[in-house]
């Protein structure tokens, strides 16, 4: 099996050009899926028999929560790759992920709380999922804070990469302990939908937004990746050509 494609991905000029070319291929489908999915979820899906129209928040909460975790995993994995193989591009990917992931974690917390008020009667519940999201936000902030503490990009890359990997390993441990803690004190999470199975009219918009948000993340990542790659290139003849474009 030829690994040339992997080696190509280590080359900043290649990645820079590739990212620029690929962005529209993710951005436009993302826009269509998100807008279509949200419309379907708001208008076409029938109301839930238990939560009425309030359940429609799932079409914004589920994708933001999903993204907050997906982005952290991508961040941790690319950070690990950057550490092991000393790839600048991998570190650039990790650095690009952090602000995206943090913003979606905030969105997940806000939408989760807004969903909580009509369902449980309070804006905040020490529900294991919300608490885990909050801790995830602090993991992102810690990563960003550590990065910000270094002037030298290379040291910032490597130190924050180690933190990201440690964080990734700890996420299951932390989540398990939060679930355990929560089970001691109250009934299991109420964040369910009325029916155990979702009909297609409810499920399809959900799948649309989940996919749409994921593609959106990739498009954002590609844009930020170009910026991060540029910042890590000091000299480089390829810059002259690339910037002319």
């Amino acid at each position, binding site marked *: 099996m030829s690994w040339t494609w992997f080696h190509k991905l280590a080359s900043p000029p290649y990645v820079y050009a590739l990212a620029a070319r690929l962005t529209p291929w993710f951005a436009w489908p993302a826009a269509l899926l998100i807008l279509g999915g949200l419309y379907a979820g708001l208008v076409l899906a029938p109301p839930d028999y238990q939560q009425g129209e309030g359940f429609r928040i799932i079409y914004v909460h589920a994708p933001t929560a999903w993204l907050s975790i997906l982005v952290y995993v991508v961040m941790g994995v690319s950070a690990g790759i950057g550490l092991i193989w000393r790839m600048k591009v991998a570190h650039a990917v990790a650095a690009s992920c952090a602000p995206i992931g943090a913003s979606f974690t905030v969105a997940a917390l806000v939408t989760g709380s807004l969903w909580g008020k009509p369902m449980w009667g309070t804006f905040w519940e020490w529900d294991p999922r919300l608490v885990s999201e909050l801790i995830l936000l602090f993991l992102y902030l*810690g990563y960003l804070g*550590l990065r910000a503490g270094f002037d030298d990009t290379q040291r910032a890359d490597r130190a924050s990469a*180690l*933190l990201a990997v440690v*964080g990734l390993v700890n996420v299951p441990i932390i989540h398990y302990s939060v679930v355990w803690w929560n089970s001691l004190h109250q009934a299991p999470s109420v964040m369910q939908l009325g029916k155990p199975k979702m009909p297609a009219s409810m499920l399809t918009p959900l799948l649309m937004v989940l996919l749409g948000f994921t593609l959106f993340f990739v498009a954002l990542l590609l844009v930020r990746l170009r910026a991060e790659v540029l910042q890590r290139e000091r000299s480089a003849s390829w810059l002259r050509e690339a910037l002319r474009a």
Partner: protein
Amino acid sequence: MRSAGLSAHSGPVAVAAVAVSPDTALRAPALTAARLAVSRDLTLAFRRRSQLVQPLAFFVLVTLLFPLAISPELARLRSIAAGVLWVAALLASLLALEFLFRDDAQDGTLEQYALAGQSLTWLLFAKTLAHWLLTGLPLSMMAPIAALSLGVGAAALPGILVSMVVGTVTLSLIGALASALTLGMKRSGALLALLTLPLSLPVLIYGARATELAIAGNAYLAPLELLAALAVLAVTLAPLAAAAAVRISLE
């Protein structure tokens, strides 16, 4: 000059310096090097005994805040005692982290350790052990006394001691990793807390639960076992990660 810092010390300190020498003829076996690293740190720490008391004093002070802020009723205090003790312990050990690497990073000892023929992981484990003996262990012994002031019955004290001992080991190790990551940063206090606390949450959850059960007179083995599992995980992985972090900062 880097090595001037080491040669200014005597006794176990100088011997430890030789033990980690890159010169294989002089190098001591790993266990000896670790033992010497521990005794070096303990000796140096005892020369500044007053600093050792600070985290303890902070712990007691924080525990004191709660009765003043909430209520002097012992019954009420007993119901929140487990949480108070653990939060105070967490914050006190955060404060104590400053002493772990600060001096060694400044005088070049850490660099010597990294360049040594010995495994940096092993040496950092030794340093963390010494640090725990100086901070975590005294904290654990202080906790039962603080618990008494919060209306806890004497029967619960062994349980509190045991859970604190096991928990503070993990806290020291997590703290060592976070300290290693922020090595050389000025005013890293808030960042250190931001990095350490989320990783310490499982310890807080299980430790507080074990303490709570002990106070209520119930069996506390289940959370204690989970606490011990975390400690084992931390002992195996944290020094390794901390060594990687130290190398990154010395690059």
